[in-house]
């Protein structure tokens, strides 16, 4: 089995047509993996070598990842990040799983400011965590921010970053958190796209 996380989640075997296809874009393949290793160092034993490494704990990274992957409802990606969280913080895994169930919806949506785009505004839910005590202030704020980024990024504003700061997030921690959520929205979509391309590769479906 490949050690590449996208290959594993998309079911791409070494030497298969999709493996050969991905190797036509070697830097994209390598650095999607390096991004994963930088964001989830413990999962892989890698050295994150980043300024954000000390600002965001490993359990926080796994908890946010399990939440984001759960919201995307891709079973393989969700299971992967659920398992990572469960291995490091089993009590938290159940709490995050309950948050996913409460927070799941369909996006992107959101309100545009007054002006020419206001007619395209689509109001939708703002997630507030259910069990703040179990999550703690930092993680509660992180999950609420992750929900904003996943479903209604057009509604992001300076107040959202101030809420993270009030919950104890440093500016560097905010950058790492934002990268983690945003990177996963990329990784999960690449996995979904490549898996579909793999299974639908023989031309028209029956």
């Amino acid at each position, binding site marked *: 089995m490949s050690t590449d996380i996208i290959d594993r989640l998309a079911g791409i075997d070494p030497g298969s047509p999709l493996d050969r296809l991905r190797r036509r874009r070697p830097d994209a393949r390598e*650095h999607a993996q390096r991004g994963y290793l930088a964001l989830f160092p413990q999962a892989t034993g890698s050295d994150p070598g980043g300024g954000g490494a000390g600002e965001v704990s490993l359990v926080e990274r796994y908890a946010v990842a399990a939440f984001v992957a759960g919201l995307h409802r891709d079973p393989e990606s969700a299971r992967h990040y659920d398992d990572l969280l469960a291995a490091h913080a089993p009590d938290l895994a159940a709490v995050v799983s309950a948050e996913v169930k409460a927070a799941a919806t369909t996006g*992107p949506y959101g309100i545009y400011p007054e002006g020419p785009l206001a007619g395209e505004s689509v109001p939708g839910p703002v997630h507030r965590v259910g069990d703040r005590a179990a999550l703690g202030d930092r993680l509660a704020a992180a999950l609420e921010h992750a929900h*904003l980024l996943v479903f209604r990024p057009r509604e992001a504003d300076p107040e959202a*970053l101030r809420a993270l700061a009030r919950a104890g997030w440093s500016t560097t921690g905010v950058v790492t958190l934002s990268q983690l959520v945003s990177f996963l929205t990329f990784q999960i979509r690449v996995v979904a796209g*490549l898996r579909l391309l793999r299974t639908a590769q023989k031309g028209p479906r029956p």
Partner: protein
Amino acid sequence: MTAAPLAFTTDRLGWEPWVEPLAEAELTEAHREALVDRARAASPYFRLLARDPAVLHARTKTDLDVFHNADGGLPRAERELAATATSRRNGCVFCASVHARFAEHYGKRPDDVRRLLDEGVGAPQDQLWRAIVDASVALAATPPALTGDHLEALRAAGLDDLAISDALHAAAFFNWANRLMLSLGEPTAPETPAGKE
């Protein structure tokens, strides 16, 4: 500095962070390596992302290969179209402005790009651009809504699997980029009149 732009545009916009980037004087050699292109030290966006250099480096190298690797696959114009359509759908005025200009430059189809920005992702397009816009929009959904029908439409428009993969990577990458640009700062109106490059 003038107020944030309210509509999608191909103007050259600025971008201001809501939290403090590293100062240029604070950048170490490791930070500058993470920027990949050292001229990016002038950009507050990249100096903000440089707070986590390992992830910035991975982001940038991924970006460059997805859009610039010219070994077969999808033409650059259509990769930029996927980026623009994704940004239009997610609501990233800044990202859409940059990649709409690239789509115009490489595709020589300014009217089609303009229609995508003005009317949105449902605006009429020819068969190839329709298939790319639709696949990008489906992939932008959470949960992703891409289906075999989208792949068939891309194949029917003449794309092979490498080109389809390029389109999907360009679209997927902009889900990453849109969220950073939208949530860490905001676009600012150009200080010089539109069209002066």
